[in-house]
């Protein structure tokens, strides 16, 4: 079931941001599609910037998102955040064994609406 748009719980944001910032090997994985979308943004960002950008976005107490049920067990949210001069749509899962999976990181496809 997909919930409506609402503020993303602080506990989830804090945990995911901490894992992203720590950057421990094996604790963060990025779907190939997401990595390619991110790398193709107009300013050609480095790959490391994605983790930092997501972590910074998650620091925002007012960040809203849409909960998604993914195949992988865990808690997933989609949200839109500004990075440099663009908006970025991201979908991130915090799995039950505390792995952060980045499923999406691209320009929003439907304006600023969360899919």
């Amino acid at each position, binding site marked *: 079931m997909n919930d409506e748009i609402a503020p993303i719980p602080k506990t989830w944001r804090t945990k995911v941001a901490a894992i992203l910032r720590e950057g421990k090997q094996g604790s*963060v994985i990025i779907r*190939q599609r997401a990595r390619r979308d991110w790398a193709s943004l107009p*300013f050609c960002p480095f790959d*490391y910037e994605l983790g930092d950008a997501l972590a910074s976005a998650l620091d925002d107490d007012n960040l809203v998102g849409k909960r998604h049920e993914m195949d992988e067990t865990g808690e997933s949210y989609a949200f839109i955040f500004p990075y440099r001069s663009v908006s970025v749509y991201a979908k991130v899962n915090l799995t039950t064994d505390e792995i952060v*999976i980045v499923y999406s990181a691209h320009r929003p496809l439907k304006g600023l609406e969360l899919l």
Partner: protein
Amino acid sequence: MKGLKERLERIEVEEPVHIPNLDGIGIAETIQVKVPAWRDPKDGEVYLDAEATAMLDKVKARHMGLLLPEQIKALRKRLGLTQPQISEMLQIGEKTWTRWETGRERPSRVINVLLFALSDGKLDAGYLHSVARRRSDWAVPLAERPCAPRNPWLNAVQEMWQGWQPEEGQELAQAIQEAIAGWLISRGKPGDVNLQMEAKITFMPATPPNVITVHSMKQAAVAGHGVQPTKPDALSSRRFEIPDEALIA
């Protein structure tokens, strides 16, 4: 059912690395790089981890001509500076420099040019220090700035160019002083700053009016008893050119 970690299989994929153009808003070149990846046999999805993305970033940095983390660290060591010192000199956060040294972050192309100039010895660390100090000075309101007449360098400059407006003279003299001091400090050994400051400004009649020639006084520096009359060392002289627009007719 197996968890994600147990399910994933090791594979190798070819990933595009886009090299930005100099404007930073377009792709100048795309390179294909082979990196290790993970495949989920359940749905065929491919994932990349930190090892792979670090490899991709390294290739990108190399193609952009950025200094590598080990080169950045070596540069700091060669300059004999600590991380806080070099961060202060470049007016950046200490964490930023640390991240450059570890490869966790990369310097911008602009900063990279500056680092190369430092690395190649084309830019004095002492001069950069003086610029950083001047930047701090600008943050101080004009009314709170140190009184100009106490500044011997200013006096010297004002003596040369009579008719300067005091405020403009003060700012320019301060800039000249810091440029000269930065150069002198960069020539000295750590701890010798005061001795190296015992230098002499020579206004050469033959040079254009907006040029100051400075000679360091080797003998004075060695003796440590202030400036003594000595023959200027031609090899240690340097000319500082002042922008024409700073002069008042």
